[in-house]
């Protein structure tokens, strides 16, 4: 990109225009790969918003054609003076009545779809808290007394509407899954809510949509809609305590985890009664981190190598991140830790 901007001075204006519009088009299209696009809806709310967008766009195109057609007609086709009666009529019909009707209809349409956006959920409630720069996620199935805790990933049963309560830790964030619905701001100390209704199983990406500090751009999350039965199985697995790997590397990794005080900020829920570790909550819950789809809030994948990279170079990957870089660990300790965490499925 820098290369092409540096050369811009030497090319003719028309080619420059062509180039920059090509660049813009590429940027715009890259937003439409479907994983994070309002134009590829996967949920009822996003579909309504998509419809609204297409209706608006269609209307705008028709209006544009009408206005410019008229303009073309009076300047090129019929250059003679218009009759006074016709001109007055045009102003009253085209300038007053037509816009009032159109805007009124759009307003009515817009208002009519609002209740859908605020519809209550069918049972499952999620509680999502925006932290700097990751997402604390709690699942509250209907009637639950304690939440099932996860992080940086939103899973929803397909074909149902789920309630989402939003909150924030220290600064304002905004919760947005473009493929499933509109965005909603998250405020420290004030709850906001929304609900989402994925129509079929699918896999998308969400992103914080309100500037929240140095690593705002690196505050994303994976979104997965699952068939209700699969979802129930998945949720039961998340509720279970950690099943630490039993291979020698994994066992050594668990020791490194304790020795290095990772538990000060992270919880790994142990089997009932054997839970002597404090439950740190500064960072994401890691009880089932091995089964997640990303690390560092959508920043890295979850290969063993990704785990090692994250643990040893946090600050270089995410500026100002609140986890210290464990760059003093030996290569052996790092790979054991990665084995252990990856094994926490």
């Amino acid at each position: 990109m820098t290369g092409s901007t540096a050369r811009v001075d030497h090319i003719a204006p028309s080619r420059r225009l062509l180039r920059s519009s090509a660049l813009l088009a590429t940027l715009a299209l890259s937003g439409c790969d479907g994983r994070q696009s309002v134009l590829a809806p996967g949920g009822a709310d996003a579909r309504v918003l998509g419809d609204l967008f297409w209706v608006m766009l269609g209307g705008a195109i028709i209006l544009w054609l009408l206005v410019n057609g008229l303009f073309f007609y009076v300047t090129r086709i019929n250059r003679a003076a218009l009759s006074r009666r016709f001109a007055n009529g045009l102003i009253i019909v085209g300038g007053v009545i037509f816009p009032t009707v159109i805007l009124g209809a759009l307003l009515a349409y817009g208002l009519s779809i609002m209740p859908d956006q605020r519809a209550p959920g069918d049972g499952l409630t999620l509680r999502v808290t925006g932290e700097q720069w990751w997402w604390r996620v709690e699942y509250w199935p209907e009637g639950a007394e304690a939440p099932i805790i996860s992080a940086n990933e939103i899973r929803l049963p397909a074909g149902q509407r789920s309630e989402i309560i939003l909150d924030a830790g220290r600064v304002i964030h905004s919760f947005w899954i473009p493929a499933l619905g509109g965005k909603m701001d998250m405020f420290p100390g004030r709850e906001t809510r929304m609900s989402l209704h994925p129509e079929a199983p699918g896999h998308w990406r969400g992103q914080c949509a309100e500037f929240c500090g140095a690593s705002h751009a690196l505050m994303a999350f994976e979104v997965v809609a699952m068939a209700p039965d699969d979802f129930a199985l998945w949720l039961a697995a998340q509720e279970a305590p950690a099943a630490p790997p039993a291979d020698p590397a994994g066992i050594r990794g668990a020791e490194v985890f304790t020795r290095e005080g990772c538990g000060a900020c992270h919880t790994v829920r142990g089997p009932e009664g054997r839970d002597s570790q404090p439950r740190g909550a500064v960072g994401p819950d890691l009880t089932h981190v091995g089964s997640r789809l990303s690390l560092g809030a959508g920043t890295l994948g979850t290969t063993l190598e990704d785990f090692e990279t994250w643990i040893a170079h946090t600050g270089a990957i995410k500026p100002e991140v609140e986890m210290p870089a464990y760059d003093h660990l030996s290569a052996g300790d790092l790979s054991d830790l990665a084995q252990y965490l990856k094994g926490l499925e």
Partner: protein
Amino acid sequence: MRYLWQMLAALAVLAALSGGAVVTLGLYNVSARVGHLPGVSWVLHTAFRNSVRLRAERPPQLPDLNDPALIELGARHYDWACRACHAAPGVAQSPTMAAMVPPPPHIETAVQGWQPHHLHWITANGIKMTGMPQWPAARDDEVWPVVAFLTAVQDGMTGAAYAALTRLPDGPAPQAYCRGCHTPALGTHVPPLAGQGAAYLRMSLRAYLDGSRASGIMAQAVSRPSPAELDALATWFAQQPAPTHAPPPTPAPLIAQGRALAHAATADPDVPACAACHGPNASESAAETPTLVGLPPAYIRQQLLLWRDGARGGGSRAHLMRVAAQNLSDADITALTAYYTTLETNGTGPENE
């Protein structure tokens, strides 16, 4: 007019040439024996006194400068860091030091006419072009013990009192020097060493030596033994039985609040569970993680403030602690200090009741 300009230009060239000659040909006599031209000493000294009065700021609250432990800590640092130049109460100055230009005044004269915040400023900043050194670490909080000592000298400390204050305890040599300060008597300001592991002590001594942990007092202290002796000292201190300490009286709710914070059992997720690294039950932690049991309250509080401000260095794991402390509030620090100073030993204490 033109003549005037030519005159000025010629003078300027001449001045530059003679200045160059003084520097390059060695014409200026730097001999201390020759001293300054008449009046120069007076100008410099007056400028110094007024400069200190203009710059030294009175803090809103002074530490208790009459605290005997603070005075003794200051005296013991003074004895190894300043005495060579300024002598000591009741002791004559060495003739060599008195022959400096300007001469360091005997400490009994040096302290006259200054208020505590002036003495703090002088000790922290030093005095340019006189040989009076600045504090060897970028930390102003540790200068107060020395100020407490200097005000005690103002109040007429006798030679006998000074000798008693700075006497080394009995025992083998390098340890005795360290034990002068690291003794329960100074326990409110100086951390005990017995009770810490050898790895942590060794790492800390190296960090003082290479400046990665800032402390003017300890930087001076570690310059006394040889590096090899330092490692032996770390091992020796780690083997001593941890001193029994009487926890200071502390309100129970404050202890409970600190315990909850230390075990991440509060609703506030901003504070990492200190217990995961420091225990109680710290036996599984990295060897370079200190125990907090038995550390004096003023020391824990001061260290936490330094960590939070990013001013506390250390070894290869110091950044873990820096991140852990970065979001502590003043109230958190008070509660955590209350909890850890009332823990009896690792694994016992209020949290197991």
